[in-house]
C-alpha cells in the first residue's frame, strides 16, 4: 500500500453562521468580502510547509488539486503549488490532481506545464487529469456542460499523443485545431508520467480508465463504506473488460485523525471536521450538477458523485462529529483503530493508493503536524506490506538523481 498526503488548501477563516449567511462556499461566495490576502499569505506558506513536512515524515506522495472560486480549495492552479514543492522536496512524488484539461485552450498548455514539473522535479510527477466538477468547469469557467466530457477526452488524447510522439504533428480535433503540435519540454518520464484520473462515479470514466490503463482515483469525502458502490462499479468494469484486479489501479481519498484514543481524537479533530463539513462543504444545490455533466447512463445507474452526496447530506442538517464517526466518514482514534479500519478498507474496496487528508477544515498547524507524524510513525508501517504481491505500474519510476536547490553566488570583485 502507498500513502499520499493530500491537501485541499481550505480557507480557514470562513465566518461563523456560514450556512445561514451564504448560499454557497463555491462559485459565488464573494471573494473580496471573505478572502483576506494578508492572512492568505500565511495560509499558503503554512500549507506548503505541511506538504513538505509530509515528505520528511515518510509519505510516498504529496497531492495538490484544482478548484476554482472555492472557499475550501485555494488552488486554482495546482501546477504553481507543485512547482513550489518541486524545489523543496526530493523524494515524495508530486501527485497533481488537476489539470481539468477541457478548461485550457489549447490543451497543449497542460502538456507543457506538466512536462515542466516532471523535468523540474526529476521525474517525480503523477499527472492527474480530472474532468473537473460542474462548479469548476461549467459554472466558474463557463465550459459548456453538454460538450465538456467530449472536449476533455479529446484534450487528453492530444496531450498523450504529444508526449508519445515527441515530434511535430498537426491535430484536427473537434475542439482543438493546431497546425503544429510540438510542446517543449518533453517529460522526463517515458513515454510520460503515470496518468491518474480523479473520478466521481461516472460509468464512462471507469471504462475509459481501464481501456487506457489509467489509475482511477475516487475522491470521496464520505468514507469507504459510502464510496463502495462506486469502487464496486469500477472493479466490475475491470473484470468485465478482462483487466487484472491490481489494487494499484485505484486510489481513494480518506479523512484521518490519529490520537491516543477515541476521546482524544474528538478533542483534536472534531472542531476542524465540523468546520469542513458545515462550512467548506456548504455547496449551493443549484450548482453541483449542470445539465449534461452526468451522462444519461450514469443518471440511470443512480451513482452520485461526492459533491452530489454532499449536497444531499448537508442541505438541511448540520453535521456533527458523532455523525462523521458513526457513518465512517472520518477514520479517527488510536493507531490500532485506524490500522484496523484501513485494513478493512483494503479488503472491501481493494485500493493500493490511499490519499489521506491529515489536514482538514481550520485545523491548527501543530495538530496537522501531529496527525501527520503519528500516521507516518504508528499507522503506515503496519500497512506497508498490504498488496506487496502486486506490481505498481501507476507510479513514477526514478530515472535521475534529484538535484537539490543550491545557493549560488559569485565572488565579489
Amino acid at each position, binding site marked *: 500500500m502507498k500513502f499520499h498526503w493530500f491537501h485541499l488548501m481550505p480557507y480557514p477563516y470562513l465566518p461563523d453562521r456560514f450556512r445561514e449567511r451564504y448560499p454557497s462556499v463555491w*462559485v459565488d461566495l464573494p471573494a473580496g468580502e471573505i478572502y483576506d490576502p494578508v492572512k492568505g499569505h500565511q495560509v499558503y506558506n503554512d500549507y506548503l510547509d505541511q506538504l513538505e513536512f509530509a515528505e520528511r515524515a515518510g509519505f510516498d506522495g504529496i497531492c495538490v488539486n484544482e478548484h476554482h472560486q472555492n472557499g475550501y480549495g485555494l488552488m486554482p492552479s495546482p501546477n504553481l503549488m507543485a512547482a513550489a514543492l518541486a524545489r523543496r522536496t526530493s523524494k515524495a512524488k508530486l501527485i497533481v490532481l488537476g489539470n481539468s484539461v477541457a478548461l485550457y485552450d489549447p490543451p497543449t498548455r497542460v502538456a507543457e506545464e506538466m512536462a515542466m514539473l516532471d523535468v523540474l522535479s526529476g521525474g517525480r510527477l503523477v499527472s492527474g487529469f480530472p474532468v473537473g466538477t460542474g462548479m469548476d468547469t*461549467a*459554472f466558474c469557467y*463557463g465550459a*459548456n*456542460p*453538454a*460538450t465538456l466530457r467530449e472536449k476533455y477526452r479529446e484534450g487528453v488524447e492530444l496531450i498523450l499523443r504529444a508526449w508519445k510522439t515527441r515530434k511535430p504533428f498537426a491535430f484536427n480535433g*473537434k475542439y482543438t485545431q493546431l497546425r503544429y503540435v510540438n510542446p517543449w519540454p518533453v517529460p522526463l518520464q517515458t513515454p510520460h508520467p503515470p496518468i491518474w484520473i480523479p473520478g466521481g462515479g461516472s460509468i464512462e470514466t471507469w471504462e475509459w480508465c481501464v481501456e487506457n490503463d489509467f489509475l482511477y482515483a475516487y475522491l470521496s469525502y464520505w468514507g469507504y463504506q459510502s464510496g463502495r458502490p462506486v469502487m464496486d462499479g469500477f472493479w466490475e468494469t475491470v473484470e468485465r473488460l478482462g483487466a487484472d484486479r491490481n489494487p494499484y489501479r485505484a486510489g481513494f481519498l480518506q479523512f484521518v485523525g490519529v490520537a491516543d484514543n477515541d476521546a482524544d481524537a474528538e478533542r483534536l479533530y472534531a472542531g476542524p471536521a465540523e468546520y469542513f463539513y458545515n462550512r467548506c462543504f456548504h455547496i*449551493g*444545490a*443549484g*450548482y*453541483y*450538477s*449542470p*445539465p*449534461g455533466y*452526468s451522462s*444519461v447512463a450514469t*443518471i*440511470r445507474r*443512480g451513482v452520485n458523485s461526492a459533491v452530489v452526496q454532499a*449536497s444531499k447530506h448537508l442541505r438541511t442538517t448540520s453535521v456533527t462529529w458523532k455523525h462523521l464517526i458513526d457513518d465512517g466518514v472520518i477514520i479517527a482514534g488510536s493507531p490500532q483503530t485506524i490500522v484496523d479500519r484501513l485494513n478493512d478498507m483494503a479488503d472491501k474496496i481493494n485500493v493500493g493508493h490511499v490519499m489521506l487528508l491529515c489536514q482538514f477544515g481550520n485545523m491548527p498547524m501543530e495538530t496537522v503536524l501531529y496527525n501527520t507524524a503519528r500516521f507516518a510513525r504508528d499507522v503506515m508501517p503496519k500497512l506497508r506490506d498490504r498488496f506487496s504481491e502486486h506490481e505498481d505500474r501507476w507510479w513514477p519510476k526514478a530515472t535521475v538523481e534529484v538535484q537539490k536547490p543550491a545557493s549560488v553566488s559569485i565572488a565579489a570583485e
Partner: protein
Amino acid sequence: MFASEIIRHPDGRTSKVFRVGQGPLVVWLHGPRGIRGSDPVIHELAKRHTVVAPLAPGFADLTELDEIRNVHELALHYDDVLQALGLDAVTLIGHSFGAMVAAEVAAHFPRRVARLVLISPLGLWQDQHPLPDMFGQVPYMTIDTLLWKAGKAIPAMADPADEPNDPVERQVAIAQALTSVAKFVWPLPDRGLRRRLPRIMAQTLVIAGGDDRFVPASYVEEFASLIRGAGMAIIPDAAHMVPYEQPADVFRKLDGWIRAGAFSDEAEAASGQKMRQKVKG
C-alpha cells in the same frame, strides 16, 4: 399522443415531427419543457390550424446533438426539417428556447419564414438587465420556480416524461431537455443573434407574459425593435410560460394578428408599423 413522423436529413440523421389539427399550417417550436402528449398549447393551436411541431434535437436522445455544434448548424437542422416537409414561407411560432431557434431560422433563411411569432424569446443578453441563471436554480435543476407564475408547472406539463412516470426517467427527461438547451445558451444565451435579427424579413409578432421573472420586458422590446416592423403584445397575469398559462389570451391575440392580415397578401405588403398598431389596438 399526437401523430408523428420521422423525417430524414440529407446526412442520414433523423428527426421526429408531430402533426395535429386542420387549417392553415403553423410550425411550433417548443420551449425547455419539450412536447407532452397532452400539450395544451398544441391542442389550442390545433383547433384552428394544422400544427407541425418538430421535437428539438437532443430532447429524446442526446446523441442527436453530436453533430449540431452551434446555433448555425441548429438553424441548418431546422432548414432540413422544413425542406423535408416541403414547407416554404411558413408561419413559425416559437416559445422561449424555441423562439430563439425560430428567430435564428428566420434570420439565417429569411425567405423560408413568412410569419414569425416569438413568445418569451431567449437569445439576447443585456448587461443592464442580467437574466437569472436558469441552470443554477434551487432545488436542483428545477426551473419551474423561475418559469411559471405560480412557481410550479400546470398539471398538464407537470410530468417531464410522458411514460413511464418513474423518478429516474423524469430525471433523465429533465437532464436531456436542459442539456439540449444548454448546448446553445451556456453560459449566457447570447450567440450573436442581436447582429442577425435585422436580417429577418418575416412579419413578426413578439409576445410575452407581463409577469415574466426570467426574461424581462426590456428583452422583448429589444427583439421587437431589432426586427423590422415587428409587433409586440404583453399578456397580463402570465410569466415565462405564457402560452401555457394564458393560452386563450395568447391565441386570441395571435388569431387577431393573423386575421388582421398576416395570412393575406394585402397584409404582407403592409408596413410593419401598421401591424404593430393593430396589435397594440
